[in-house]
């Protein structure tokens, strides 16, 4: 049963990812082109998810918006992970003043409630893809740094690392070959969950009007835009919301499922 959830989550993620990659080829209508003959039409066979207040097809806009949401979620997480790895390695491996310096930077970032920090950061930048990107990386790196610092601290005195050091391996080599691979399970879980948080954060910022600006569609922006027509056209908010929820739900299930599966594997080999 748990495996069933896990695999269906992975399947759903693959579908969403595939649709977003192919977005510009498979949108049934132009996501940006208003159609004055089809204002606020309820879901039907020609418009599976209905149309919005300017007659644009909601399904097409969701597919087009997914490209931004998913790519932002993935790329910012990768970037945050890279920064987190560098800081986590330096502060966990070398200790001393570099550790304190990195530690203070991590603590300061984590001291902010993340949505508030995201609002503060993105409000001083010109709203757009770039501002969201920078914001999500800034609020995301510290968690990774903390995680990798902890793992490095735990592993750096273990026998196999000491053996490698005696054999003359460089610090970087030890970290990349003997510390990072052993933490891969935790990191993969953290990355999966983080992509979900990033997508949630992006849609929240778009909802508040701080993200990618209209007419470009984003999931959060579509929910926000549909709010004004909630009574007459509920599908304008329902469908983007369902898609955001499903995406984040699958990411969460996949992340936690992976954690359980890898814990199971570790037990098996011990």
């Amino acid at each position, binding site marked *: *049963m*748990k495996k069933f959830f896990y695999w269906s989550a992975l399947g759903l993620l693959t579908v969403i990812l595939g649709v977003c990659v192919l977005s510009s080829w498979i949108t049934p209508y132009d996501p940006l082109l208003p159609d004055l003959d089809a204002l606020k039409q309820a879901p039907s066979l020609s418009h599976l998810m209905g149309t919005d207040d300017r007659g644009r097809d909601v399904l097409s806009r969701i597919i087009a918006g997914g490209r931004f949401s998913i790519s932002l979620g993935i790329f910012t997480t990768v970037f945050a992970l890279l920064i987190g790895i560098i800081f986590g390695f330096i502060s966990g491996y070398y200790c001393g003043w570099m550790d304190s310096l990195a530690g*203070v*930077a991590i*603590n*300061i970032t984590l*001291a*902010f*409630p993340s*949505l*508030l*920090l995201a*609002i*503060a*950061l993105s*409000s*001083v930048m*010109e709203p757009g893809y770039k501002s969201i990107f920078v914001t999500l990386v800034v609020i995301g790196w510290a968690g990774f740094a903390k995680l990798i610092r902890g793992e490095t601290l735990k592993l750096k005195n273990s026998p196999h690392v000491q053996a490698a050091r005696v054999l003359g391996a460089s610090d970087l080599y030890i970290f990349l070959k003997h510390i990072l691979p052993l933490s891969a399970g935790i990191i993969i879980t953290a990355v999966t969950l983080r992509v*979900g948080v990033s997508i*949630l954060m992006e*849609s*929240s910022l778009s*909802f*508040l*009007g*701080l993200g990618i600006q209209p007419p470009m569609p984003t999931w*959060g922006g579509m*929910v*926000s835009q549909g*709010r004004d027509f*909630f*009574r007459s056209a*509920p599908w304008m*908010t329902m469908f983007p*919301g369902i898609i*955001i*929820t499903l995406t*984040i*739900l699958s*990411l*969460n*299930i996949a992340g*936690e499922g992976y954690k359980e599966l890898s814990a199971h594997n570790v037990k098996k080999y011990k």
Partner: protein
Amino acid sequence: MPLKYFFKKIIESFPTLTGVIIITFILLKLAPGNPLYSIIGERVTAERVSELKSKMDIYDVSLLRQLKMYLFNILKGDLGYSYITKQPVFTSLMEKLPNTIKLASLSIFLAVICGIGLGLIGALTRSVLVDKIILLITTFGISTPVFWFGLLLIYLFARCLRILPASGMSEGELAYIILPALTLGSRSAAYIARMTKASLQDVLAEPYVLSAKARGLSPFSVLRHSLKNAMIPIITLIGLDFGSYLNGSVLTETIFGWNGVGRYVVMAISQRDYPVIMGGVLMGTLIFIAVNILMDIFYVVADPRIELK
């Protein structure tokens, strides 16, 4: 000694606090637009601008001096003045804070009741089906975006069933607070349920629970004893969530037109009213840090096994 620990924690938080303040200061400086123009309007001559600049004497001093002034002002409780309303930011925030506290308290109350209830059911029943259902509910609770969940609730209770008002505060009747509190508390309820279940299951596996059972204690008193020990991480979680609600639940307050700190900040975003944005962020962060420290201390006081280092 908890008191010593308390002071140690406060001193430890100083670098973080300073860093937070410096960051809001830098962001305030980076904000586009010149605050002068916001004060006097765009259509003034260059002479008038330079005259005002010299009068305000902020523009002559170095950034470091400005930072120092900013720090001292914060210590005095002065977060600057709103560009739009010209009111002191701190006073306006304080006016909105009671509403935020009201909403946060009810949300956390609902979250605790639902969360602990669900968690108890999950930990005490051995049914696989119940387990899965709870897992599914909590995963949904964690994954649903707050702003969308709020709209769903409005759709269901205000539009379809017509039993609760969609938004606003009116005179503070209970009916107006129910939907925002449910929205805000949903996420927390899911986390609390998971934590309760995991923590209680851990405790129930301890040898002393077995010995209590073996001595013939009633299931109820066994539960009472084990719940006491299981509660420590749960209460920490509740505290932290409450702390994050106190800094103004930006999204929930916006959707429901709740006149609190969060909505005040969001309205400032659309008006580019940077002192208000940064003031709100700073205050929220300070509250957040304070709650974190309190929870650290609670943890140590509640569980004597944790050593005071």
